[in-house]
């Protein structure tokens, strides 16, 4: 080292004599509108002479002709300029995208990609920019190996289920932990009414503007997640928001408008009046009544039959509009990123929409050389209108098929028709329901995150971070008194407010040093405390004299006034030790000790840890000859994490209140309790290989993993004679083993023409490894040796051509058919709601300023259960409700006919519509074109002429095409959670045009 310096000084001295010196001035700036770069480094190559630029990017340096000036700046591609006769050298540096990719945000810190010992996948912010979906989770599907998303429907702002590397729990939450700018946040639905649903139709993450995202890291294995201890088992999604950079202010404005319709083309259709009339008469004739009898009844029910297509009447083309503006920049002490956005989406169903207003300010102040203070604050306000979905009378996707076409939308006075109130689903009027009644929800969320980072020495940092997540929800439902659910009580309203406050304080000490040029160590010590409190207030009233005055004060009878409070807390200590030798061998040790109020007093504290190691073979001497191989890295990790996603008070044996009688307050046992209750443990192992070759043109990652989940929380069913149905216990083990592969290929990479292709695929094999007694549920049976979602059903054997009766196989051998449902055994039908494999495929082609990109996602060998079929295709069981076109067209009518569906008999008691039979089970294998975008980027030279920095216009389609293997499938294959699709608003496809301008 010393020799090198002496040599340099000598060279410099010598050259100063030989070459004439001159003073060179100039300016350093950055492309893409970032502007002048302060504190850029300008060095003379192979010397130690150098200067830095001033705040305006200007510099001045003395150099010799023949010297080479090296211009560098963090995050920019370094540029070299030879000194000839110039006196002024101005350079424009370009952003170094590859280097940006190399820095990966992990739990409580960030590391270079190279030094990762765990399985972490990073998505850059552009994947989330101007997405047509309401929350960021939707952009993860197909982009991350091992991550599977399922959505319960097309209500804008609705919840999505994310599973990383399979299902890790029976009863506790299987969703990953979400961390925004270092802070774990509240996720999912926090609503009380959720428009009358059970939490699938709302999501507090929709308050976050996806355009503010700089990057998302998905942490998958124990080496990466153990630092989150009892909340790490389901993986962690770390979201980092954008921050400013010193330099000229940069403004981005983007806008788009999109049009939506149902994504899946083969959805069920309702039948028309003529078909319904046929069915109506047929159903009574099959029941032994005469045609006259049936016709009389028909005339009585439908004195003036209409021909309404209820599905068409409630569907629409939804319009999505989005505007986003942000500004970033800063001086050498303070940098900022500020944004504001407006997002407005109409659902494809009448009366379903979502609007978001959000803003953010991320500020960083270098108070002194040692102290940096950061404050990130975001405010989001959403307003959504929604529907009660599922198999409820008021559910639009249920009523649209069941309310007959003969029922008109309006009566003669122009009011919504309710003449069917006495015999048809409480007079359900799907159109009236969602135009006349009200169902809205407003969510307001403020997340503030303030931290101070103090550099005690060059190598030792102390950071204290405090965050507050304040969430307020206000929701309201009104049901009119003429038809639908409010009819019995003369109209009713339900109003709730929820306040959720969570604070977290995190203190960390970080020591980082390179010893002897080869031993790099990084030590993290931390302490964290969190407390979360939820309060709710809910009131209900009935009897509305005037349907236009809807606040609770206008009602005759208040029927409910209640409030509730619930809390939980966590205390944690954690540490991580990272070491690398010569950038060849890496090791990481993590440890966390967690305590939580949720767990039984006898089992309150737990320890979690992991070890990870990696070996960069291409850094070894013996590999240097393999010039075609740019990177070869092996990594392995093992560790223990936990899942704390259970109710706040499940461990306690409780007496609850609210059991009033005769206007006196009452109490009753409400929970059996289990003082031994504790988190689920997960032991996971991960072995991976990363490859890059042919000048990094081809990169690939392969990972094999085993997730063993132990002490799984299970609602162990109790004999109902105890007064309880279940008790939460830590029993049962489950295992997910799997393989993930991703490949990226730069097929063509030239100045004018680029073609890139990427793919990922994941195989996950789930198996219950310990369960002392099987548990039979609705559609499934959990049993040792089986997978978690193995369907356990009676086996439908079609229709008897002679009688039109439904048939079942009596047992597994499928040798005997019976028309008596009670004689049919439930068996494992060899089908699962878990796919064999799933993944994504993406490609982009750029020619000059034009770019075309597409992304497919696919799921193979997954089955779905059509839950509402027991009513919609009921063979007449539910008099006199209508049915689907498919059921009508395929029903049995004459002896000898081979039909898919049994004969139609009103009040049918054959149980042919029974809820757990393979009749309603469908193969839902699919490939979907999730995204296709065609864009044009304006030439820089043209942009300059019109005084802007950049401009891009694009045309984009989401969910445009869907291929399914089973052509009889009348459900969106991507919808549905837990192996079942309910009568939810279908998912949408959207065509969007957009414009981005940078100033």
């Amino acid at each position, binding site marked *: 080292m010393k020799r090198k310096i002496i040599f340099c000084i000598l060279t410099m001295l010598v050259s100063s004599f030989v070459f004439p010196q001159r003073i060179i001035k100039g300016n350093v700036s950055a492309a893409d509108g970032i502007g002048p770069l302060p504190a850029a480094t300008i060095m003379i190559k192979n010397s130690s002479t150098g200067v830095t630029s001033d705040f305006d990017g200007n510099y001045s340096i003395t150099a010799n002709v023949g010297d080479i000036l090296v211009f560098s700046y963090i995050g920019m591609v370094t540029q070299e300029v030879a000194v000839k006769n110039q006196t002024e050298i101005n350079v424009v540096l370009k952003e170094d995208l590859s280097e940006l990719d190399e820095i990966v945000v992990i739990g409580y810190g960030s590391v270079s990609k190279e030094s990762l010992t765990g399985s972490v996948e990073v998505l850059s912010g552009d994947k989330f920019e101007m997405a047509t979906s309401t929350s960021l989770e939707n952009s993860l599907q197909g982009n991350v190996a091992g991550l599977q998303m399922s959505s319960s429907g097309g209500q804008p702002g609705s919840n999505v289920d994310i599973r990383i590397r399979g299902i890790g729990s029976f009863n506790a939450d299987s969703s990953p932990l979400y961390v925004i700018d270092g802070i774990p946040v509240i996720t999912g639905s926090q609503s009380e009414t959720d428009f009358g649903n059970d939490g699938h139709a709302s999501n507090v993450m929709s308050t976050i503007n996806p355009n503010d995202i700089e990057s998302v890291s998905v942490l998958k294995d124990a080496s990466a997640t153990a630092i989150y201890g009892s909340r790490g088992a389901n993986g962690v999604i770390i979201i980092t928001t954008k921050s400013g950079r010193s330099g000229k202010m940069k403004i981005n404005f983007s806008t788009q408008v999109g049009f939506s319709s149902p994504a899946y083309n083969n959805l069920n259709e309702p039948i028309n009046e003529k078909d319904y009339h046929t069915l109506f008469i047929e159903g009574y004739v099959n*029941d032994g009544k005469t045609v006259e009898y049936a016709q*009389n*009844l028909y005339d009585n029910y439908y004195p003036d039959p209409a021909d309404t297509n209820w599905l068409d009447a409630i569907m629409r083309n939804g319009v999505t509009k989005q505007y986003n503006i942000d500004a970033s920049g800063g001086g050498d002490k303070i940098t900022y990123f500020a944004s504001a956005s407006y997002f407005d989406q109409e659902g494809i169903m009448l009366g379903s929409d979502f609007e978001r207003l959000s803003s953010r300010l991320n500020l960083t102040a270098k108070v002194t050389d040692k102290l940096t203070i950061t404050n990130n604050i975001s405010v989001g306000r959403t307003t959504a209108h929604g529907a009660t979905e599922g198999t409820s009378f008021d559910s639009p996707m249920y009523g649209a098929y069941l309310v007959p076409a003969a029922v008109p939308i309006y009566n003669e006075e122009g009011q919504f028709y309710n003449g069917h109130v*006495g015999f*048809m689903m*409480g007079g359900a009027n799907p159109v009236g329901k969602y135009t006349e009644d009200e169902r809205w929800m407003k969510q307001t969320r403020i997340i503030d995150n303030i931290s101070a980072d103090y550099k005690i*020495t060059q*190598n*030792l940092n102390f950071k*204290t971070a405090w965050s507050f997540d304040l969430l307020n929800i206000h929701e309201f439902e009104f049901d009119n008194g003429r038809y639908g*659910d409010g*009819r*019995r009580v003369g109209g009713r309203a339900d109003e709730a407010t929820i306040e959720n406050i969570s604070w977290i304080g995190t*203190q960390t*000490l970080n020591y980082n040093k390179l010893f002897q040029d080869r031993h790099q160590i990084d030590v993290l*010590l931390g302490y964290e*405390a969190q407390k979360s409190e939820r309060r709710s207030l809910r009131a209900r009233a*009935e009897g509305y004299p005037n349907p236009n005055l809807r606040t609770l004060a206008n009602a005759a009878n208040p*029927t*409910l006034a209640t409030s509730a*409070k*619930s*809390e*939980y*807390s966590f205390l944690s*200590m954690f540490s991580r030790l990272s070491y690398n030798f010569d950038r060849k061998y890496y090791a990481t040790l993590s440890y966390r000790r967690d*305590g*939580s109020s949720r767990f039984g007093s006898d089992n*309150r504290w737990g320890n979690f840890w992991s070890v990870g190691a990696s070996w960069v073979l291409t850094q070894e001497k013996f590999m240097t000859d393999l010039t075609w191989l740019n990177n070869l890295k092996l990594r392995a990790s093992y560790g223990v994490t936990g899942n704390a996603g259970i109710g706040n*008070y499940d461990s*306690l*044996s*409780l007496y609850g*209140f*609210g*059991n*009033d*009688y*005769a206007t*006196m307050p*009452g*109490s*009753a*046992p*409400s929970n059996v309790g289990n003082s031994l209750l504790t988190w689920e443990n997960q032991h996971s192992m991960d072995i991976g290989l990363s490859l890059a070759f042919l000048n990094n043109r081809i990169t690939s990652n392969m990972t094999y993993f085993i997730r063993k989940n132990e002490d799984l929380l299970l609602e162990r*069913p*109790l*004999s*109902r*004679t*105890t*007064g309880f*149905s279940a*008790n939460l216990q830590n029993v049962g083990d489950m295992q997910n083993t799997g393989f993930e592969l991703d490949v990226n290929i730069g097929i063509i990479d030239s100045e004018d023409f680029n073609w890139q292709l990427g793919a990922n695929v994941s195989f996950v094999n789930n198996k219950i490894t310990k369960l002392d007694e099987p548990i039979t549920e609705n559609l499934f049976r959990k049993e040792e040796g089986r997978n978690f979602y193995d369907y356990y059903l009676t086996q439908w054997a079609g229709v008897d051509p002679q009688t039109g009766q439904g048939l079942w196989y009596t047992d597994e051998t499928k040798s005997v058919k019976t028309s008596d*449902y009670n004689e049919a055994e439930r068996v494992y039908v060899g089908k699962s709601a878990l796919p064999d494999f799933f993944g994504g495929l993406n490609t982009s082609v750029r020619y000059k300023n034009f770019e075309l990109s597409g992304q497919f996602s696919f799921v193979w060998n997954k089955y779905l259960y059509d839950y509402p079929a027991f009513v919609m295709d009921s063979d007449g069981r539910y*008099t*006199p409700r209508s049915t689907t076109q498919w059921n009508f067209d395929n029903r049995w009518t004459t002896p000898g006919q081979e039909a898919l569906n049994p004969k139609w008999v009103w*009040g049918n*008691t054959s149980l042919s519509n029974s*809820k757990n039979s393979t009749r309603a089970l469908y193969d839902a294998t699919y490939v979907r074109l999730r995204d296709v975008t065609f864009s044009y980027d304006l030439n820089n030279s043209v942009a300059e002429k019109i005084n802007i920095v950049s401009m891009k216009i694009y045309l984009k389609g989401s969910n445009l095409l869907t291929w399914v293997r089973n052509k009889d499938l009348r459900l969106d294959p991507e919808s549905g959670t837990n192996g079942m699709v309910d009568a939810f608003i279908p998912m949408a496809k959207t065509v969007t045009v957009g414009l981005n301008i940078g100033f």
Partner: protein
Amino acid sequence: MFKITVMIKYKNLDNLRKSIAVVMLSIFASSCSNDFLDLQPHQSIDTDMALQSIGDFQAANVGMYDGLSSSNYYGRYFVLVSDIMSDDVKQNASANRASDWAAYAGSSTDNNNLANNIWSRIYSVIDRSNRIILSETTLPPSVQDEFDNIKGQAYAVRALAHFDLVRLYAQHYTYTNDASHMGIPIVTSIDPFTKPARNSVKEVYDQIISDLQTALELVDKKKNSFFLTQSGVYGLLSRVYLYKEDWVNAVDAADQVIDSNLFSLVPNENYQAIFNTDHSSETIFEIDMHETDNRGTDALGGMYLATGYGDYLPSKDVLNLLPPNDVRNSLYITDAGLAGDYASKRVNKYDSKLGLNNIPVIRLSEVYLNRAEANAHIPGAEMAAQQDLNKIRQRALPSAPDVTATGSQLIDEILKERRVELAFEGHRLYDLTRNKKGVHRTDCTSSVCDVSYPSDRFVLAIGQAEIDVNPNVTQNPGY
């Protein structure tokens, strides 16, 4: 419990010390104690603390009755299911709720999962009663009377719950000579992990009678129809003995109620008041229904009213038994919207659109009819039986002639009166089966119109959830 040791050689130790002080301070400022993690709920309390004072027991007692008022018990389905299995009811065209049972197509997984839900709900009431009965808390003498009264009610409710289960899920007492056939599991202890087998019907009745007799010694004698009092317990006893065909004891128990003179039949002109006012003069025990119970969709009345679900209609079989001027005709109203076989009456006994009718459990007229039926079986007591029958019949129709029938004809007359007087109060099916009669529907809209006695189908299936969990429970034959 958590120490930070930083092993760094550093020149500016002062700075380092300061920093470490900051770290430690912030750690302890966040409170490192277990108190931070010991959060108790705000809507419920630990079971150990739940039954400590007389106030706690009063609340637990109220909670027990709240269980009785649930829609899976007296609030709706328990009463409805047995009635729609009888010959008093026909299904409306759009009848869906509980319709598997009305059509004798029920199973352990019926369309509203009632086999499971009713069972589960009644057993949860038993659990609530056991918590009171088995509590070891002792209270000061000043509140001992009230404490006794609560314990007595717990015994009575436990008996009622067992009785209701054995009626619905097991064949009647005399189905076998010694009542040795399958009853239901008796639960008199608290053990969340128990998996009890079914006791015989005899054992269940013995337990019921023993609990009712214990209750008699503890409960209040005062009149309060929202809670079980001594008269309520005697009333229940008269019915239990009647079902058991222990005629003498049935008469004795009925005498205790009638002779107490606490109750009187509601006069003819106010007849409907029995069902739409609180504490009518003949109501011995009723389940109070109130606005805050939010009955709207769940009420028993809503199953009959046009403004509710209106799933079930009164059959002409029962309507035609009423003479023209009988006051009980006023309990049925004409609905012009009903056509064809469904025309034309609706049950209006529970007439509140909002579902605020109390549900009668025992009223004086039943006690008279219990005594009449028991006496009709006791040699030499026929005249007493006729007198009681006249009381009920002539209250409804003052011009009705005195009953002169004797023997089996008298019994038939009593059963006929019982049918019209107690219609839609959850009695008819049991009155048929315990008299070994089948269900024969003439005015019938169901796919099943005749079920002859005996039939496996007169009792519900045990719900699948119980069968799945509890290997000791045997399913009823035929399911």
